[in-house]
């Protein structure tokens, strides 16, 4: 997890805790999970791009 994403998740947590309505709190906490998924997917796709670009046979 990058520093930015850790910070972002903390911000979302704080915002969620400030919501008095249960369904609003639920929304922000669920958004946090999607952000975590974005990070994970971005890392995986970035890795795949690197892996496929690094082709010694084409040097």
């Amino acid at each position, binding site marked *: 997890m990058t520093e930015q994403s850790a910070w972002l998740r903390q*911000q979302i947590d704080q*915002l969620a805790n400030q919501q008095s309505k249960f369904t*609003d709190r639920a*929304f922000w*906490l*669920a958004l946090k999970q*999607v*952000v975590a998924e974005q990070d994970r997917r971005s890392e995986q796709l970035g890795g795949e791009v690197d892996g496929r670009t690094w082709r010694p046979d084409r040097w």
Partner: protein
Amino acid sequence: MTTLVLVSHPQLADSTSQQFLKESLPDDDVVWEHIEGQSTLDVTKEQDQLRHADRIILQFPLYWYAAPAGLKQWEDTVLTRTFVYGDHRDPLAGKELGIVVTTGMPKQAFQRGGAENVTLDAVMAPLAALAHRAKMTWLPTFPIYQFSYLEEPEKLQLVIDYQRYLTQKQPDSLTNRQEWFAHRLSAMVDQLPAEQQTTGKLIASIFDQNRAHLDQLTDTLAMIKEQEDD
């Protein structure tokens, strides 16, 4: 997209899970109806509701491996042969059918060798057959196991999972999930009190950036793969 939620429960007011789900309904275009709450079933009205919906949700507790009797009665009264397929108009064709089912037993009970020795998919076979006959698209079932044992974090999660099941584009992929959240995010930020607006906007902006970045990576990868194929 219009979603029609048909709830079947003989004692709705006494059901904490059904009351919870009712409170969790999204603000979108959702029509909610309690089947047993109507003194008589108005067949024309019921059929019209079905015609106008894009996604139809049948929601009920599981009683002896089936829906409560009220839903069967509704099916037998409203889903006449002529309406569903008899006159070859197929008014339900292409619509999605989803099932929200609550159970008193835990998830692991619903498998071969488990306490119930049957999967929920197997139990839903008659409804899936109906969907097939009506040329509807069957959505993966949304089970809620042992609602009364859920802790607060699980209940918070349930609110949004349920809302997404009702209104999010299928399949439940990251792309569709992102779209669902993006669609709601600005309204959610707008309704925040003034002192929380800045944080809300910042979160929304990073979320959008992440989404755009993922799209870009996906495109790059597709290009690389295309070149590899050449």
